[in-house]
């Protein structure tokens, strides 16, 4: 059986699944239940200075997709709304009771050296394994100059990271906000500030939906709403991209990454890890189904690893990173065309209408003795994959590679590239 244990910047946990800093890690009661269910670690709900924040009523929004609930989730909650001392005592007790689990404390205090210096001492006393700097909260806290307001300014990220390394001996994880144009600017700032790791993504600015009766955004608070932070399955592609960008950036110097955003299954986790993440963090999936989901996450990952012959997570971690590249390095001579397995085809015609109306008119709709038949016109197919994605039958449409005899060629070297024509002149 594969070994799922991880050692992430010196923080050990029996498996790579940490609960992200959020309601599931708000207090000892939840965290103990999570550990009992098998979670490898937690990032405690973000702590701030006293007096604690006050939350509004009606806090979450969600979007479903065709009957599936919570495809995307959003919240307008702030950081922990309990007194600092209560949290600290609970953290200390839980870590003592569960020494083999990772206990990371998320922090967010005003952007002054003293504020950080003071709170770091008190965290150290809890014997937690490390801290995570919440530079990501995109709503409420950012209006007060914290969270994303810090995370969006690389200089602040670097500065605060440096203070934390200076005033504590604990490993420091910087949690990045995705609400910027280029994730590398803040990731590099964290590296410069001496952070031990980055975690990402925090939530994305969002309005999940508009209530057309109230004419107000959801979640609505007494007739008004505000943008919230978006998370859940819908954000995974965005998170994967940002993780990959950091993993392959020389200036980020292979900084360890804790991957976050839409992790719901072992497969999601494996994808994050293939792109370089050393651990993953989960919030929405736990809020949707409860803590027991970790059971299949562990079991499924181990079974998959066994089937692939991976004994430890390090055996496959970051394996996909070298295959993430820029468009200009792709082989422009590579050719595939769609292929329909007529035995599997149920004749829904979706491939035809998709290609006919919106792509390359490469699937013909025929009637053979009155029966429907959909056929690919190889010469017209550009290999875009659209039909494969809309076909409701698994493995019915596949893309077959065409041996066109052409050599590997990138756009850079392609004679059709105007830049090359200029050079030739």
């Amino acid at each position, binding site marked *: 059986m594969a070994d799922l244990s991880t050692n992430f910047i010196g923080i050990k946990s029996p498996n790579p699944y940490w609960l992200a800093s959020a309601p599931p890690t708000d207090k000892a009661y939840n965290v103990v239940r999570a550990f009992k269910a098998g979670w490898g670690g937690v990032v405690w709900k973000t702590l701030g200075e006293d007096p604690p924040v006050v939350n509004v009523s009606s806090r979450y929004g969600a979007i479903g997709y065709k009957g599936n609930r919570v495809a995307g989730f959003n919240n307008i909650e702030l950081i922990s709304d309990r007194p600092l001392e209560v949290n600290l005592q609970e953290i200390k007790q839980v870590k003592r009771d569960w020494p083999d689990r990772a206990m990371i404390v998320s922090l967010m205090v005003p952007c002054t050296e003293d504020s950080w210096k003071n709170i770091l001492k008190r965290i150290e006393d809890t014997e937690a394994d490390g801290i995570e700097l919440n530079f990501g909260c995109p709503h409420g806290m950012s209006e007060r100059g914290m969270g994303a307001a810090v995370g969006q300014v690389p200089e602040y990220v670097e500065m605060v990271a440096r203070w934390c390394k200076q005033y504590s001996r604990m490993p420091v994880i910087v949690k990045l906000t995705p609400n910027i144009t280029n994730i590398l600017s803040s990731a590099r700032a964290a590296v410069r500030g001496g952070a031990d790791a980055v975690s990402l993504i925090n939530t994305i600015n969002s309005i999940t939906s508009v209530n057309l009766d109230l004419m107000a955004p959801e979640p609505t608070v007494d007739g008004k709403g505000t943008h919230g932070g978006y998370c859940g399955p819908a954000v995974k592609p965005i998170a994967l991209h940002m993780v990959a960008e950091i993993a392959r950036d020389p200036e980020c110097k292979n900084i360890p990454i804790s991957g976050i955003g839409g992790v719901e299954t072992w497969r999601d986790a494996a994808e994050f890890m293939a792109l370089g993440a050393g651990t993953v963090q989960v919030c929405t999936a736990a809020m949707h189904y409860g803590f027991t989901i970790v059971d299949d996450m562990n079991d499924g990952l181990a079974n998959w690893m066994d089937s692939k012959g991976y004994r430890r997570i390090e055996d496959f971690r970051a394996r996909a990173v070298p295959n993430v590249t820029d468009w200009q390095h792709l082989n422009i001579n590579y050719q595939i065309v769609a292929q329909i397995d007529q035995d599997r085809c149920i*004749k829904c015609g*979706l491939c035809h209408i998709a290609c006919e109306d919106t792509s390359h008119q490469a699937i013909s*709709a025929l009637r053979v003795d009155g029966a*429907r038949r959909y056929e690919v016109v190889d010469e017209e197919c550009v290999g875009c994959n659209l039909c494969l994605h809309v076909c409701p039958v698994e493995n019915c449409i596949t893309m077959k590679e065409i041996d066109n005899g052409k050599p590997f060629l990138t756009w850079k070297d392609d004679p059709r590239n105007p830049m090359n024509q200029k050079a030739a002149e």
Partner: protein
Amino acid sequence: MSEIDIRPDIATGRLKAEQYTENFDDLVPVLDRKTALVEANRCYFCYDAPCIEACPTGIDIPGFIKKIATDNVRGSAVRILEANIFGGACARVCPTEILCEQACVRNAQENKPVTIGRLQRYATDHLMATGEHPFTRAPLTGRKVAVVGAGPAGLSCAHRLAMLGHDVVVFEAKAHPGGLNEYGVAEYKMPDHFARAEVDFLLKIGGIEIRTGQALGRDITLSGLRRDYDAVFLGMGLAGVKALEAEGEELAGVMNAVDYIADLRQADDFGRLPVGRKVVVIGGGNTAIDIAIQIRRLGAEDVTLVYRRGPSEMGATHHEQELAQVNGVRIKHWARPVKLTGQGGAVREAVFEYTQLDADGRLIGTGDHFAVPADMVFKAIGQSFVPDPLRQDGRDLLELKGAKIAVDAEGKTSLDKVWAGGDCTPGQDLTVAAVQDGKIAALAIDRALRG
């Protein structure tokens, strides 16, 4: 032999009042919103959808289902009703397992079609509950069309003609309009006087006058209608019932299934209907199944349905046969009635001969017999078209084909100005087919009237 004299046992009020209510409640209740959304989202929104082709009225099925999925339920209902004004009835009575749902691509994928019929009901019930009639009439043409028969064919034709701006008078022999929706279809498929509510809904278009108690051939004549109206549509259904041609048919307790069902459908109190303890049903179509199930639900103890051929030859669909069996009806195949024996003028027993196919595939008796005790025997071997109202001076006014009114693809008969559709013309005897016939004929009549 036993000394005890077992008398024919036909009684009323076999069940408690609440049992009747339960037994004749909606067989398939309307979907709630949540379930409807889940089901609607199962639809792939197919291109050139096979289900549309399999619906005799050609309803835009993916279109109306998509609208349910977006909570545009009114839009969904309108999409259905514009192709089929009896969308509500059809949602309840269509044998979807041999129509739209049989063609659904989900069968090929997972043996489970989208439940199109139930979604159709979800949408149409919603609209009908609002009391709204969603269609308006085109500018009036001043033309007048006579429709004979207020069944699905006649009323579908009348509604479409009214929409197109013509005025319509419908002549109906019976006391209520609706045809077999009102008098024939199983009660549990259309409880709560749905047929009447649907006719009321349909008439809201305006321009349609229904004259009940007016029979062609008795109160009016075809020549008269042709003289007084710009066009005539015949939607008279099948007024006759095929005879068994077995000895003893005249005994008390031997009845036509359709007559009994008509009484049942009109009954205010099911407890007043006479119900035999032991009942034999002869026939293999939906009428046979319907009477068998309904008589069971009225409290009959043993119900045996006897059909002269095998299960796959039965007119009733597999689904209907199963429903009968679930309702405790015993189905015996490969036997034909020979005679009905009685006592004191009342039937006591039905005698059958086993059948089989000969080398040429013809049905023959084996010579072996068996008897089934019966207090009541229902004849359900088919209805037939009665051409008498279309006769004048001893000859048919229009051409017949296979004992029904001959028509072209648009319902035109051999007689000038006269169209026909529904059960009285060749084709499948289904509500939905009748609706389509009426609609097609209306469009043809409209074209003819506009010259």
